[in-house]
C-alpha cells in the first residue's frame, strides 16, 4: 500500500495515503523530479498546487495588463470630446479589456484557486487527472499568447466587444486576422478552463479523504463544485458560438438570415451568463471561509448555504435571456421570472454571511476587511441586477453605463474583493511567507475608495442616457463632471494595485516564515499541513486530522480547549 518511496530524512517518509488509490508510478517519478526548484520543474509540474499557483499568477499579471488598458480608456473619457485616442483605438481597448478580464483573468483566477485548494481541503494527495491540468494550464497560456498576438496585429486588432455579436464580427464588417485570432484565443482559453474544472470536479466528488462526506466539505469546496458544474455545462456553448463565428468569417454570405444572428446571441449568453457566476462563486467561497475564520465560529447556516449554491447553479442555466430583452425576439417574461427567482438562493447566501458575523468575535485582519467590504458592495451589484432583470427597467438601462456600473460592482467590487480576501488569507499557506498587514490595510483602503469613486457615478450617467462603449461624449449633456470623478477613482484603484504588488515583492524579499497556521484561526484541512504543503499535501509530520464536520480544525481546537480548561 505504501506507494511512495523516498530517501530517508524526507518528511514524506511515513506518508501513507489512507484508503486512497495508490499513486501511479509516473506520479512518483514526477514528484522526484519536482524536488528541483528550477523554473523547468515548476512549469512542467503535475502538482495541483504548482499548476494552481501558475494559473493564478498568470491571471494576476493579466489583471494588471488589462487594468492598464482601462486606465487609458478612463483617461480618454475624463473630458467630453476626448482626443487622447481615436474611436477605433478605444473600441480595441474595451474589447481587449473586457474579453481579457473574462477569458484570461477572472475565470482562470477562479478555476486556478479551485485547483489549488480543493484537493487540500478534502484531504486528497493530488488532483484527479494531473497531467490534464498541466495541459489545461498550457492551453490557457497558448490562448493568452494568441490573444496577445491578436492585440498586436498592426492592421486590425479585435474591436467587436467581448460578446462580438454577429454580423458585426463576421468577415465582411470586421475583416482582418486580428478578430480571427481573438476567436481562436477565446476558444483555447475557455476550453482550457473547462478541462481544468472537470478535473477539479472529479477530485471533489471521487477523491475525498475518509470521513470527508459531501456534507462535511468546506463552503469553499462546495462553491468550487458548483462552479465546476456550471463550467462544464455552459462553456461548451461558447465553443459552439465561436465555431459559428468562425464559419461566418470564412464566408459571411452563409449567414444572411436573422436566425443566425439571434441564435448566436442565445448561444453566447448560454455561456455568458453562467460564466459570471463562475467568476463569482469561488470568491463567495473565499468570503465565507474568511468570515468563519475571523469570527472564530463555524460557518452559520452551512446546509442551507450548500443547497442554495446548488439551486443557484441549476437556476443559472435558465436566465441567459435577460441579456436579450430588447431584441424583440425573447420570451422576456419567462427570463424575468427565472432571473428574479435567483435572488432567493442569493438571499440565503447573505443569511450565512450575516449569521456568521452576528455571533462572532470579529478580528479585523486584512482578509477580513476585504470580506466585510464585499458584503455591501456586492449587494449593490445584486440589487441593481434585479432591476436589470425587470424588462420595463431594462428597456431603459440596457446598453447604458448603468449596466457597466452594475457588472463592475459584481465583478470588481464583488468578485475581486472576494479574491483579494482569499489571496491575503491563503498567501502564507501557499508560499510559506507572510504579507505585511499595514500595507495590506493601505491596499484595502485605497481599493474601497477607488472602486466606489469609479463605479458609483456610472449608475447616474447611465441613467441619464450615456450609452456604454462610446469613445467619447458631447459636451453640454452634463456627463463631464461625473466622468471625471470616475477617472480619478480609476487611478486610485491603480495606486492600490501598486501597493499590492509592492507588498508581494517586499515579502518575497524579506521571506518572513509563516508557520502552519499563521492566523491561528484556520478551520479547514489545509491549515493542518505545512506552509507550503508537501508534495502530496499531508505526510507523517502533518497527518489528516479526524473529520467530523465542515470545520475539522475548529472541532479539534474546541475539544483541546475543553479538555484543558
Amino acid at each position, binding site marked *: 500500500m505504501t506507494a511512495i518511496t523516498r530517501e530517508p530524512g524526507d518528511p514524506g517518509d511515513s506518508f501513507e495515503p489512507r484508503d486512497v488509490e495508490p499513486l501511479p508510478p509516473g506520479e512518483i517519478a514526477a514528484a522526484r523530479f519536482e524536488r528541483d526548484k528550477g523554473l523547468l520543474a515548476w512549469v512542467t509540474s503535475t502538482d495541483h498546487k504548482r499548476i494552481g499557483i501558475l494559473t493564478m499568477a498568470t491571471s494576476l499579471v493579466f489583471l494588471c495588463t488589462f487594468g492598464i488598458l482601462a486606465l487609458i480608456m478612463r483617461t480618454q473619457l475624463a473630458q467630453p470630446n476626448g482626443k487622447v485616442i481615436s*474611436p477605433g483605438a478605444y473600441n480595441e481597448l474595451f474589447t481587449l479589456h473586457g474579453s481579457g478580464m473574462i477569458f484570461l483573468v477572472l475565470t482562470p483566477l477562479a478555476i486556478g484557486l479551485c485547483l489549488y485548494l480543493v484537493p487540500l481541503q478534502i484531504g486528497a494527495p493530488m488532483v484527479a487527472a494531473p497531467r490534464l491540468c498541466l495541459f489545461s494550464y498550457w492551453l490557457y497560456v497558448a490562448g493568452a499568447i494568441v490573444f496577445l498576438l491578436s492585440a498586436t496585429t498592426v492592421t486590425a486588432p479585435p474591436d467587436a466587444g467581448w460578446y462580438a*455579436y454577429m454580423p458585426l464580427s463576421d468577415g465582411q*464588417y470586421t475583416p482582418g486576422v486580428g478578430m480571427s485570432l481573438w476567436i481562436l484565443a477565446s476558444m483555447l482559453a475557455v476550453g482550457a478552463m473547462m478541462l481544468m474544472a472537470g478535473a477539479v470536479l472529479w477530485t471533489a466528488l471521487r477523491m475525498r479523504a475518509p470521513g470527508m462526506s459531501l456534507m462535511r466539505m468546506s463552503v469553499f469546496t462546495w462553491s468550487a463544485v458548483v462552479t465546476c458544474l456550471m463550467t462544464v455545462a455552459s462553456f461548451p456553448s461558447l465553443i459552439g458560438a465561436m465555431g459559428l463565428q468562425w464559419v461566418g468569417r470564412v464566408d459571411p454570405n452563409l449567414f444572411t438570415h436573422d436566425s443566425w444572428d439571434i441564435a448566436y446571441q442565445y448561444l453566447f449568453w448560454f455561456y455568458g451568463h453562467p460564466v459570471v457566476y463562475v467568476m463569482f462563486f469561488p470568491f463567495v467561497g473565499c468570503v465565507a471561509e474568511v468570515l468563519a475564520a475571523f469570527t472564530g465560529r463555524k460557518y452559520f447556516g452551512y446546509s442551507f448555504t450548500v443547497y442554495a449554491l446548488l439551486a443557484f447553479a441549476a437556476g443559472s442555466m435558465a436566465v441567459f435571456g435577460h441579456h436579450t430583452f430588447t431584441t424583440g425576439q425573447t420570451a422576456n417574461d419567462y427570463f*424575468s421570472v427565472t432571473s428574479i*427567482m435567483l435572488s432567493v438562493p442569493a438571499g440565503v447566501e447573505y443569511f450565512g454571511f450575516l449569521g456568521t458575523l452576528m455571533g462572532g*468575535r470579529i478580528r479585523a485582519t486584512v482578509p477580513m476587511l476585504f470580506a466585510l467590504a464585499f458584503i455591501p458592495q456586492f449587494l449593490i451589484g445584486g440589487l441593481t441586477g434585479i432591476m436589470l432583470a425587470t424588462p420595463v*427597467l431594462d428597456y431603459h438601462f440596457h446598453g447604458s453605463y448603468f449596466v457597466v456600473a452594475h457588472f463592475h460592482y459584481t465583478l470588481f467590487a464583488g468578485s475581486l474583493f472576494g479574491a483579494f480576501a482569499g489571496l491575503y488569507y491563503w498567501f502564507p499557506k501557499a508560499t510559506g511567507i507572510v504579507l505585511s498587514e499595514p500595507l495590506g490595510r493601505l491596499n484595502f483602503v485605497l481599493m474601497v475608495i477607488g472602486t466606489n469613486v469609479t463605479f458609483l457615478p456610472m449608475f447616474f450617467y447611465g441613467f441619464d442616457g450615456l*450609452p456604454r462603449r*462610446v469613445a*467619447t461624449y458631447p459636451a453640454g449633456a452634463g456627463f463631464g463632471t461625473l466622468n471625471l470623478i470616475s477617472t480619478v477613482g480609476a487611478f486610485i484603484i491603480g495606486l492600490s494595485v501598486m501597493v499590492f504588488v509592492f507588498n508581494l515583492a517586499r515579502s518575497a524579499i524579506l521571506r518572513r516564515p509563516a508557520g502552519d497556521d499563521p492566523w491561528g484561526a484556520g478551520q479547514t484541512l489545509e491549515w493542518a499541513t505545512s506552509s507550503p504543503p508537501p508534495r502530496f499535501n499531508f505526510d507523517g509530520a502533518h497527518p489528516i486530522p479526524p473529520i467530523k464536520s465542515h470545520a475539522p480544525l475548529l472541532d479539534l481546537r474546541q475539544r483541546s480547549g475543553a479538555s484543558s480548561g
Partner: protein
Amino acid sequence: MPYRPTFDSEFALELIIAAVIFGIVVLLMVYALLQSRRRTEPSQRSEAKGLERTYVLVLIGLAGFILSTSLISNADVQPSRAADGPKPLVVQVNAFQWCWRFTYPTRHIVVTGTCIQGHDLPTLVVPTGRPVRIHLTSDDVVHEWWVPHLRYKEEAFPNWTNTFQFTLSSKGDWIGRCSEFCGLFHSFMDFHLEAVSPQQYRQWSSQHAGTTLT
C-alpha cells in the same frame, strides 16, 4: 400605459426595496461589529433551522412580489390591441453604419443624415397626441434605437423588423442614441426626436411630401 410612467413607478418601487434591503444589511453588519466587542467567546450556535425556513419563505414571497410587478408592468407597456383611438402614424426606421433613416411611407418622406462627429443628425418629427408606430430594422449590423427621455429602446436587426409604439403628449426635442455597439463610429450615432403640434406636423409633412431630407 406609456413607457416612462411605467418605468418611473417600477423603478421607484424597486429602488425603495433595494434601499431597505441595503439598509438592513448594513445595520446588521454594524450591529455585528458592535456586539463583537462585548463578546469574549464566539457563539457556538451554527444553525437555526426554523429561522432559516421562515427566512426562505419570506424571500420567496418577496421575489414573487417583485416578479409579479415585473410581469404586470411589462404587460402594461405592450401596445393595446383595442382598435379605438387615433390611427397610429407609421414610421419605418432603418439603422445603418453609422446613422439613421426615417421613412414616412404615406407621405413618401425620407429623413436621413451622416451623423459625422455628432453633426448632421437626422430628426424624427412626430405629432403630439397621436400614437407613433415604429417599424425598426437595420441595413447592416445590429444597432439599437434608444430615446432616454422615453425610457425605451429596442434593437435593430438586419433581416428582421421590430415594432413598437409610443405617444408624446407634449412638444419637445430629445436626443436619441444608438446603444448597441455597431463598429467604428458607434459613439456618434445620435438622432433627434422632435414632437410638434398636429398642425405643425401636417404643415411639415405636406411641405416635404415626396422628398428626401438630409
